């Protein structure tokens, strides 16, 4: 999310995960892949021969420009990925986001509010291209691939079933045995191993915030709120009178929400704090109002992940807002995943490896 120019260059010169592993002896590598189908970013995790994990990340966005020979040549020279679709040049991924900011345009987003966008007609073909690129081909036919799906939202009426079925079919068509896992449950698989997979996992994504409470790896409560990074961007853009892509850029360039430096950062900090408070209040309400809720004797940890949690000062503000509410269960550590952007994909990979 917070890319420097060096990072972008390194990204463009690095092989994909599929290519990186294709020449190696694959017999010792644990089969199974994890895929984070996020509103803002797509991430695919795979285990390497040495047991380490590689995650391929690409922004879930595209931008169409007029197709002509000059533009095509320029994009090729600049190593900007494109496809020709419906007689248009379509730039996909991070490059689309960068170009949109340069030309003052809005990127097109295949997903909105955590689900496949009903308003974007080219959503599926574009997402299939990106997923195909980051996931690669299965190392053997029917290799297991766990992809994340959001929980139903408590604040809007959304259709998670259609979204899940759609991606199940898309990934299966690529030759995988596609299985879904709740997004926040994946965070628990990734971050709460030391706590015997007991605690609260939160995934702060672009379109939603997903929450899952688990006991010994078994999910007891899952839900989502249809607010996330995009909600912050939309509101910041509204109050600053700028485009959403610009607001996203401002947010991702390195803001510390504990110490906003100007009017733009002030707006970002306000909406971040509001989002965190909203999420905490809803978790509290669900705990207090839910039936068959587990009663934890020992304090449980809260693990935060997702691209929206990457902003500077996030976890401190989270703890500050948490201290303001009377949370119904004892809570121990509140922490952010070591690499919050890839936590969900890694959790999906754990699920794929264990066959959960």
């Amino acid at each position, binding site marked *: 999310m917070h890319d420097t120019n060096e*990072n*972008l260059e390194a*990204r463009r*010169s*690095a*092989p*994909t*995960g599929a290519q990186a592993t294709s020449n190696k002896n694959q017999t010792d590598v644990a089969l199974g892949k994890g895929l984070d189908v996020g509103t803002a970013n797509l991430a695919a*995790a795979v*285990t390497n021969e040495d*047991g*380490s*994990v*590689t*995650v*391929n*990340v*690409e922004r879930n966005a595209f931008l169409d420009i007029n197709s002509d020979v000059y533009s095509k040549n320029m*994009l*090729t020279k600049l*190593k900007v*990925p*494109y*496809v*020709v*679709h419906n007689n248009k040049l379509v730039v*996909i*991924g991070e490059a689309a986001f960068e170009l949109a900011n340069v030309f003052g345009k809005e990127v097109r987003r295949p997903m909105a509010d955590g689900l496949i966008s009903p308003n974007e007609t080219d959503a*599926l*073909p574009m997402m*299939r*291209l990106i997923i195909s*690129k*980051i996931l690669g081909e299965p190392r053997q036919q*029917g290799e297991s691939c766990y992809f994340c799906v959001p929980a139903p939202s408590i604040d809007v009426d959304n259709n998670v079933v*259609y979204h899940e*079925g*759609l991606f199940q*079919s*898309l990934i*299966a*068509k690529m030759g995988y*045995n596609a299985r879904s896992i709740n997004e926040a449950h994946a965070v628990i*698989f*990734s971050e709460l*191993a*030391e706590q*015997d*997979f007991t605690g609260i996992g939160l995934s702060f994504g672009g379109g939603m915030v997903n929450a899952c409470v688990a006991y010994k*790896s078994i999910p007891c409560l899952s839900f989502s709120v249809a607010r996330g990074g995009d909600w912050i961007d939309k509101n910041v853009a509204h109050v600053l009178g700028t485009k959403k892509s610009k607001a996203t850029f401002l947010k991702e360039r390195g803001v510390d929400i504990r110490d906003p430096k100007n009017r733009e950062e002030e707006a970002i900090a306000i909406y971040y704090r509001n989002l965190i408070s909203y999420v905490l209040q809803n978790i509290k309400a669900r705990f207090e109002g839910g039936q068959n809720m587990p009663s934890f004797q020992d304090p449980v940890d809260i693990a935060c992940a997702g691209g929206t949690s990457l902003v500077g000062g996030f976890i401190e503000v989270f703890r500050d807002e948490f201290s303001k509410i009377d949370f119904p269960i004892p809570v121990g550590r509140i922490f952010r995943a*070591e*690499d919050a*952007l*890839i936590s969900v994909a*890694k959790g999906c*990979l*754990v699920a794929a*490896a*264990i066959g*959960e």
Partner: protein
Amino acid sequence: MESIVDIRHALEARSVTTSLDSLKNKGRDRVRVIRAEQIAEMIAEAVQRAVAGSGLMTQEEVDRLIHESRREFQTVLAQRQKESAEARAALEEIDGVRAELEAAQARVRELEAELAQGGSGAANDPAQGRLIQTLMAEVAQLKASMSQPQVVVATQPVQAQAQDGNLAAAIAKLAGTLEERIDKIGRKVGVSSAVEADAVDYSRIFAKGDDKKMESNLDTMQVQQKSAGGIAGNLAKLKKLKGGS
């Protein structure tokens, strides 16, 4: 007949029993006797005369009243006999339902055993998946057939239901328990929803032309790569939780 019995009871309640020797000692050598039937006839005659003499009812009306009372008595008697016969029939019906339920439970136990054997590999084996679908359908049929007799019981007369309410409740409870077990088995093998409806085929959403290769430079495209620590520790913990080595 009933009036005679009542008169006999009334006489017994209002008279004392004494021996012949006791009467003889009191100087009574002879006594007059009268039967209860005769007393009843006398009372009936006295009542009829009193009613006729009162001028409130004619003799004809008195006779008609007696006739209607007898007819009403016969009607009530026939109704009670009919209800008794229906109650006996309901009991026989419930016995039949109970036998059917026991047979169904035995069949479900067999199916459970078959599902337990085939469930674990169902996800990877389409043939096994189809077999489980068939078994689940059979279980669902059994469930439906078990609910049918409940309807029969529910249509029985109110008196019979009240009489056998406990048994009907027990059958309903058994059926409910069975339904829960069927759903549990379905969830275990991942085909529970398929019992009621076929899965939606989302692959049709993808148009036929989607598979053709589009002109692009994506083959040269590089994506951002991030390295992360391994997941061996997580897997070991999970396996331990699941009871594995």
